[in-house]
């Protein structure tokens, strides 16, 4: 018998000139989490994710991006965060969707992230895979800008498998 609601909103944060926000007390009852962030920035800078307040060199990521002229790839290892690796529009909103796969499972945590940032003449589209080298369940997710502040919304959803 198929389940009822499987894709559930957990929390929505309205960002009004915010440089950081946290989804906290995340229950371990879902299979995956999805964060959707739709924002403008005062400076155009990107933001990053951290988990459970971990500010150590526990993160890494591999990114594929297109900038309207060329496709490229980059990597960061033993980093202090997972960088969404895309600027944020200052006049038009940019959209970011990050999937936190098996966030409460027993393996190190892998995320898949998408960025859509078109500025009518410039912009970035990317896909990214990130790693948090920690087998703990993710109970909090913090987004923080590299510079400037964000205005818009950040929503966290939970997905339950059968």
């Amino acid at each position, binding site marked *: 018998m198929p389940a009822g609601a499987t894709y559930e909103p957990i929390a929505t944060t309205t960002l009004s000139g915010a440089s950081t926000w946290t989804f906290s007390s995340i229950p371990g009852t879902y299979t995956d989490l999805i964060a959707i962030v739709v924002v403008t920035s005062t400076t155009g800078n990107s933001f990053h994710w951290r988990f459970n307040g971990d500010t150590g060199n526990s993160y890494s990521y591999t990114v*594929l991006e297109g900038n309207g002229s060329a496709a490229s790839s980059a990597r960061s290892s033993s980093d202090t965060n997972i960088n969404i690796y895309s600027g944020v529009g200052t006049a038009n909103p940019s959209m970011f969707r990050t999937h936190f796969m098996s966030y409460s499972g027993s393996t190190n945590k892998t995320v898949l992230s998408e960025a859509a940032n078109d500025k009518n003449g410039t912009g970035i589209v990317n896909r990214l895979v990130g790693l948090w080298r920690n087998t703990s369940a993710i109970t909090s997710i913090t987004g923080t800008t590299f510079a400037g502040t964000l205005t818009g919304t950040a929503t966290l959803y939970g997905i339950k498998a059968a």
Partner: protein
Amino acid sequence: MIGALVAGITGSGGASLSSYESIASATGTGTSSANIVFSSIPATYTHLQIRAINRDTLGGTGTSLFYVRFNGDTGSNYVRHRLWGNGTSASSSGAVSQSFIEIFGSSFYSGSTNVGASIIDVLDYASTTKNKTTRNFSGNDNNGSGFVNISSGLWLNTAAITSITLVPEQGFGTATQFALYGIKAAA
């Protein structure tokens, strides 16, 4: 004979309160050559989505992958195109007349402590007039190596998809988890 871990659908019907529903899930057994099969998929959704984390049973620490087939079709009826990044450069490739759709960079070999992840959208899966298209997003990061991939797949068959077979490179390790979801359009 390839063994199969079947995660078919039990029970039937029931009004849904949601347009995104969990259909079935399965976990790897650690057995070589054991496929995972989602069978008896009802035609009541518009699209399907598979969400997975994977670690293969093959020894080593490198990148691995798995394959997707529909309705048990092992013929050369699949096509795919891929764009990927390896942390240094972006590349693209395509292949026709394949006997599966490859989900690249979706797993690691058994010596890794990490898992690959993938999200596969199977669009208009129940159509009986269209060949079937998949949209795939996958990646594996090993803190210094790994890949991020986007790809499209095509199954050259207009039959409604009633089963999905997931084939490992060698075997689905016990860290492997697959979940199948159905997405309904507005009534």
